């Protein structure tokens, strides 16, 4: 091979961005087309440096916008290469048009989204507005809660996305600053092990295969558009989850690190549970343990695969729970939070419908403190004791001024 391998320690102290950059290096990504934006910049910067230092055999394409970045990725993926990039917030918003092109053309691209608030007002800090903006785009969306997971899930993303039965692009999400700029111990794989997990890229319908000419990105109109979109949805609904599970199983065999489509913590006998994504899942886990010491049977459910949404696994995880709080880190824009919506949809036709209340928190990077979560669990227990939701269905956590609540 025409590149150098890098010696890594068993445990490196990396932030989420560097962990993702190292994953792109170890995956030997052929093309990164990127337009850097805070807080995701160090991911593509890291790949570019590895490339310049001879640790990757690939190409870094500098473009004039995020729209062009994803367009470049689409071109390179259609040509038949392993492709990845990274973005956040406004950059993600500018990419949206091309996100639908990528998924509709069934191109396996890995996009690291370092979650950040959407302006206005301008804010570089972490919330889930950009992640939510991508939720109907036809991509697979994996969510990490720590730098370790940002590293690991990149390998899962390549493996699932490039599978010929899947052929759908995949986002790997991490919380801006709270993961991307927070250094923690990351258990590494050596270069051969990491690359071996995903293997060589196997092109399919690649444009550079001149013996089998193909056209990508055609126009269909009313006669075929619906069939294409429904088949894409069918594959998201039926093919992705088994492949994700298989990738998680293989990864556990390789590294000992176990991932689940829905992560459940202290849920076996939980009465009250918080359901959320990102770093908040880990903070809530710590608080749940503390609540248990106080006699409240608290649990946490974390969404690992946000798209396709794991309805069946969620139903299973929430069986027997008496009160659930969904935590949405995105301004809901005139309705309930996305997780509230999904959970209500998942549970409505089940027998044991728990008391469900929704909370909006952490916009623009506002801290979710352990004290907030203690109050939240206490409120959920009060709902259980009263046998009904005692509060409005939608409340805001940690916002200054008069208490906001709706519905």
């Amino acid at each position, binding site marked *: 091979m025409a590149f150098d391998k890098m010696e890594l320690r068993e*445990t490196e*102290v990396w*932030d989420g961005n560097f962990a993702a950059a190292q994953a792109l290096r170890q995956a030997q990504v052929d093309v990164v087309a990127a337009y850097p934006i805070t807080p995701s910049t160090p991911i593509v910067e890291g790949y570019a440096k590895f490339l310049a230092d001879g640790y990757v055999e690939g190409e870094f394409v500098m473009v004039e916008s995020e729209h062009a970045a994803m367009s470049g990725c689409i071109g390179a993926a259609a040509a038949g290469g392993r492709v990845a990039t990274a973005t956040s917030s406004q950059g993600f918003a500018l990419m949206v048009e091309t996100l639908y092109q990528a998924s509709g053309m069934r191109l396996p691209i890995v996009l690291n989204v370092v979650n950040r608030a959407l302006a206005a007002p*301008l804010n*570089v*800090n972490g919330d889930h507005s950009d992640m939510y903006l991508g939720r109907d785009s036809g991509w697979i969306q994996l969510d990490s809660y720590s730098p370790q997971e940002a590293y690991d899930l990149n390998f899962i993303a390549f493996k699932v996305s490039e599978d010929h039965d899947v052929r759908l692009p995949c986002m790997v999400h991490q*919380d801006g*600053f*709270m993961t991307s*700029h*927070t*250094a*923690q*111990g990351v258990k590494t794989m050596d270069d051969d092990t990491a690359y071996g997990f995903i293997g060589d890229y196997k092109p399919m319908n690649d444009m550079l295969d001149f013996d089998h000419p193909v056209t990508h990105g055609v126009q269909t109109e009313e006669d075929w558009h619906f069939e294409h979109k429904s088949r894409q949805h069918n594959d998201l609904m039926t093919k992705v989850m088994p492949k994700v599970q298989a990738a998680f199983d293989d990864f556990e065999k390789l590294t000992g690190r176990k991932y689940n489509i829905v992560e459940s913590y202290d849920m076996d006998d939980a009465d009250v549970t918080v359901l959320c994504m990102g*770093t*908040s899942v*880990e*903070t809530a*886990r*710590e608080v749940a343990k503390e609540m248990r010491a106080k006699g409240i049977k608290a649990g946490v459910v974390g969404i690992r695969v946000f798209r396709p949404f794991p309805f069946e696994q969620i139903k299973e995880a929430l069986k027997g729970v008496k009160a659930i709080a969904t935590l949405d880190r995105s301004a809901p824009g005139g309705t309930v939070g996305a997780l509230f919506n999904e959970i209500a949809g998942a549970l409505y036709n089940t027998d044991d419908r728990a008391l469900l209340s929704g909370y909006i928190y952490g916009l623009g990077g506002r*801290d*979710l*403190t*352990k*004290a907030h979560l203690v109050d939240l669990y206490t409120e959920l227990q009060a709902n259980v004791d009263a046998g009904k939701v005692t509060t409005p269905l939608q409340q805001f956590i940690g916002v200054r001024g008069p208490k906001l609540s709706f519905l």
Partner: protein
Amino acid sequence: MLEIRWHSRAGQGAVTGAKGLADVISTTGKEVQAFAFYGSAKRGAAMTAYNRVAETPIMNHEKYMEPDYVFVIDPALVYTTDVTMNAKEDTVFIITTHMTTEELVASQPKLEGKTVYTLDCIKIAQETIGRAIPNTPMLGAFMKISEMYDIEFFKDNMKRVLGKLPQKIVDANMLAIQRAYDEVK
């Protein structure tokens, strides 16, 4: 859980210092976390960085902290920000200043009754590294006050952390760490 808050100006190396400290501690099998509040802070703006150290994996991602140690690596921040914010009874303050500890406490009444150690990280950095980058001296002082590790062990590990820098700069940092270790009071 050991928790540390750094008060710094953007560009003085608090983030690098916090990550470097985390890296060294991680080699001894402990779990670490290092992060900072950036905002859209520009060079020279007051900022804070944080370390958490524990025996078990660190799940807590809240930014709120009641620190065991407070490091102040810019002398003016004692007056322009509240370095005693969310402090506990036994929080230890290590502050860079050209004054004696008594003079410093007299000049900032909020520090009265607190456990305060002082040294001049800026001067040490200027005289050894040649630039006012007070982060590594602060870590030398921390090793002395906390008795966390033997100073030679710490310096050996910092040599690895700083490994990408020119040898001359690494050597100067080692001098700075040792001087801070010797001079903090």
